[in-house]
């Protein structure tokens, strides 16, 4: 089904960080993701677009085995981390290990009702990191990466719930970055935010790709076009088309992709 565009095949020298191989996912007897195969390139932003219910969030949540928290779910196929070619969906890999390597930012900002500092430090705490100086350095680095350090450096002990929605989301990004993840998953990170906070986060995501691989699910086509390097269009659980973002948006190969990006449905 996948109509890979030529740019993706050669990929302009980009190195693959992970590869999804014939991945299907079902809740009970309902298959939500159907045999999807696509590459994830290192230090690039890959966007997943498609209408509501097309399975893009479900696909994203396979990457950190979030579905393992719920009953009656089943993976089929592989997500291989490269270059070691390790299938993170394999049952002999602990989902906790996967989540320590691949972190996630959710649709709605979900900071813990703890201090700003503790929110960012939490990933280190669960790993048993005790050295105060290291934790402090990491928190500062992560908050700086998330573009939040200057706003909060004087009140790290204040409750995270006192921050604005946009700040909370950047805090969640800092929390996801603090543990040096190999891949960061962003699940519609700006859908609950105002345009100014959205612009802020988009800018931030683009700077992050210098050293992190990013997979972002978005409802907003313009956002995908603005920030991503590669885009996958999903429809009814299938990956219809995958390619370099400019190519996919200007010369879609599949009629459904074209209908979607020109606004004929969705």
């Amino acid at each position: 089904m996948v109509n890979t565009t030529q740019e993706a095949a050669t990929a302009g020298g980009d190195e693959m960080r992970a590869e999804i191989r014939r991945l299907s996912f079902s809740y009970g007897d309902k298959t939500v993701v159907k045999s999807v195969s696509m590459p994830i390139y290192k230090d690039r932003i890959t966007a997943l677009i498609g209408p509501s219910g097309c399975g893009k969030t479900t696909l994203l949540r396979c990457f950190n085995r979030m579905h393992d928290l719920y009953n009656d779910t089943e993976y089929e196929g592989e997500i291989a981390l490269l270059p070691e070619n390790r299938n993170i969906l394999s049952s002999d890999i602990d989902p906790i290990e996967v989540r320590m390597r691949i972190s996630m930012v959710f649709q709605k900002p979900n900071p813990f009702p703890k201090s700003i500092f503790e929110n960012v430090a939490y990933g280190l705490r669960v790993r048993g990191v005790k050295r105060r100086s290291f934790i402090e350095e990491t928190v500062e680095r992560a908050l700086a990466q998330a573009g939040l350090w200057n706003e909060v450096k004087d009140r790290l002990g204040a409750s995270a719930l006192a921050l604005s929605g946009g700040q909370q989301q950047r805090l969640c990004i800092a929390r996801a970055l603090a543990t040096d993840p190999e891949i960061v998953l962003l699940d519609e990170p700006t859908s609950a935010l105002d345009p100014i906070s959205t612009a802020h986060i988009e800018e931030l995501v683009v700077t992050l790709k210098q050293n992190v691989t990013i997979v972002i699910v978005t409802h907003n086509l313009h956002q995908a076009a603005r920030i991503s390097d590669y885009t996958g269009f999903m429809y009814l659980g299938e990956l219809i088309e995958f390619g370099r973002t400019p190519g996919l948006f200007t010369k879609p190969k599949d009629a459904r992709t074209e209908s979607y990006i020109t606004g004929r449905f969705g």
Partner: protein
Amino acid sequence: MSRSEMVRIERHLNRRKVADFLFAMVGLLCLLFALLTLLALMYDLARTGVPRLSLDFLASFPSRFADRSGILSAWVGTLCVMAVTAVAVIPVGVAAGVYLEEYAPKNALTAIIELNIINLAAIPSITFGLMALGLFVYEFGFGQSILTAGLTLGLLVLPIVIVTTREAIRAIPNTIREAAYAVGASKWQVVQHHIVPYSAGGILTGIIISLSRAIGETAPLITIGALTFIAFLPTPPVSGDAPYVSFQWLMDPFTVMPIQMFNWVSRPQPEFHVNAAATGVILLAMTLVMNGAAIYIRYRFRKRVKW
């Protein structure tokens, strides 16, 4: 619309408004009836009991003479029994609630267990007394002691603690759980760092409410053989001699305030009835303070953690 139709609609509207008003009145009356009955009861109790209250009343043992009687052994007994109840019920109830909410697989067996816990809360308390008489008093040989009483009341209010713990946990949004799992926390870390701290307010409220229910229980304690007249205190838990700490008090006989009340009410002399009323005032005040504390704690935690 014709004129006659307008009139008809208006009349109908008036009828509906009258019905509305009538129901509001009936509701208000029902509410007042409940409130006034309660107020009258409390007023009567306070009018009889409050004048009898004094430090002497709190510091004296019961006696054959009504005016020399006090509730020292009763309130000390209540305190001791409540301490045992709290120590028994808090860890068991909270752990069971956390397990059911966070760990138990969602299957038929869990559903049956859940249903039974809710039913357990509705079992007549005297049944717990009978069970305790057989199990704690005879089988385990705890005797008619503070330990037996505390464990019995603990079992009695255990369902309340479990149910309120679960409700408090269920109020935590799933996004918070996912946030913690997403950075690599294990289930136990999620429970320890997030679930229990964030639901602590609700859990604490449930504990206090369960204790305030236990404090007034009489029937199961009479069943296990609490004394109705007792003129000594349990062994002190700390003493000047080695080994300094003693748990003998757990095995001592006891009485509690509602039983003391019951004993005095059943006497023919009216002076003893006054004593009973005074005890009632204290018991009521303790319950009010506990419920007040529960409301305050809930309010504080709601303010601190809002989703």
